[in-house]
């Protein structure tokens, strides 16, 4: 095996393109090293992208935030601006693994690994985050909800990798939240999860919303019906009921020892409901500048 440490994006995509199928990108390595050590994958080359320019930076852009692909979970959590603007994304990312995993894991790696239970992904999709992809033909952007095409499969083509994730600007009266269910309190993989992002109108009703569900299908899903269920409401009971029904309808989970189909379907509705309420409280607080 070879270990490569490119210093520019061009060099990185060049190495990846020339070694298609043989090379693997190394971010924080918390998925990759586990897969290598278990013999699940045997790459001939590792391309460590952590030394590219700007890849460990968090920068303000167009009122939003650009998160470098090698920014660790812990580093994102330390960024006050990110916590204030996208608390749901930050709390989702901070749920990944232990303190030790947080020191290394990245949102980009979480996304590129392509797992349906990846914690930061529903929150990123709810946030309408956009992945910046570098490749032989230069940079392109891909909305996170279109990035994963199936378990472990992504839109990345030959020589391509993710260089950053963009979290867009948002109005003041808005917020987001993420919740997952695990049988323990820490260190486990989501049995079901939900990310909710809402924007309030001047009258306090929900003007726009995005709801994404994790671990209840082959990939994370954006559920338009769930968002429609709460748009125009203040999360009164009928809206909540419609939200829960829409999430249950969108869930097509597997049955396994960690949760039955019935359990996952019920829980994902409950999580969406609770995440919506948290996002609502946060948005109201942002709108009025007061704690509700």
């Amino acid at each position: 095996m070879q270990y490569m440490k490119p210093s520019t994006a061009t060099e990185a995509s060049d190495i990846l393109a020339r070694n298609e199928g043989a090379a693997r990108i190394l971010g924080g390595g918390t998925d990759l090293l586990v897969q290598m050590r278990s013999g699940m994958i045997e790459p001939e080359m590792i391309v460590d992208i952590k030394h590219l320019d700007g890849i460990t930076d968090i920068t303000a852009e167009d009122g939003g935030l650009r998160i470098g692909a090698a920014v660790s979970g812990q580093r994102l959590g330390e960024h006050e601006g990110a916590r204030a603007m996208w608390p749901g994304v930050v709390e989702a990312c901070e749920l990944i693994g232990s303190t030790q995993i947080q020191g290394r894991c990245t949102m980009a790696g979480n996304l590129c690994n392509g797992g349906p239970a990846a914690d930061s992904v529903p929150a990123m999709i709810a946030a309408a985050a956009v992945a910046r992809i570098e490749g032989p033909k230069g940079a392109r952007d891909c909305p996170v909800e279109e990035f994963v095409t199936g378990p472990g499969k992504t839109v990345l083509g030959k020589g391509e990798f993710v260089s950053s994730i963009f979290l867009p600007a948002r109005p003041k009266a808005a917020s987001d939240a993420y919740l997952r269910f695990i049988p323990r309190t820490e260190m486990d993989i989501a049995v079901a999860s939900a990310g909710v992002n809402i924007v309030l109108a001047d009258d306090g009703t929900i003007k726009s919303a995005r709801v994404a569900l994790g671990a209840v299908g082959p990939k994370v899903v954006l559920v338009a019906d769930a968002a429609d269920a709460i748009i125009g409401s203040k999360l009164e009971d009928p809206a909540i009921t419609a939200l829960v029904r829409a999430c249950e309808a969108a869930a097509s989970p597997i049955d396994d020892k960690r949760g039955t189909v019935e359990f996952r379907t019920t829980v994902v509705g409950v999580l969406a409901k609770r995440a919506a309420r948290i996002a609502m409280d946060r948005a109201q607080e942002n709108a009025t500048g007061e704690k509700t």
Partner: protein
Amino acid sequence: MKNIHVSTTLNGDDAEFVCAPEETLLDALRNRLGLSGAKEGCGTGDCGACTVEMDGRLVCSCLVLGAEAQGAQIKTVEGMAIGEALHPLQQAFIDHAALQCGICTPGILVAAKNLLERNPDPTDTEIRYWLAGNLCRCTGYDKIIKAVQIAAADMRGA
């Protein structure tokens, strides 16, 4: 397979080693540098026995390549004592029986030290969450949490 030459800073001192590209930092520390404090409990990031500090952050050294240590600041349990003087955490773990077999202990000490540097006065809950990635199969967590609290108080000069 070409071996890689790595220059790093280990517990404050310059260190050099040669390792295979797929070799983990844990194996490099133990087999190339003779530092056997970090242990391999699982090799999958779950147990924390291999915990070391890398550029100020805790990592599972079983999930870091030795090659990634190039230019980094690595701190291990071997760097905690100053000469014969044990770190307050080490002393508290001995005095308050916070270890039995000791396999988990180096990882827990390194993790707890990093916590106390960020938060000198943590609650029990904060300590438990911080150490959630450090498994102990024999002592039980109560004594460990208590020892961290005693060391924290000691370090605050209380």
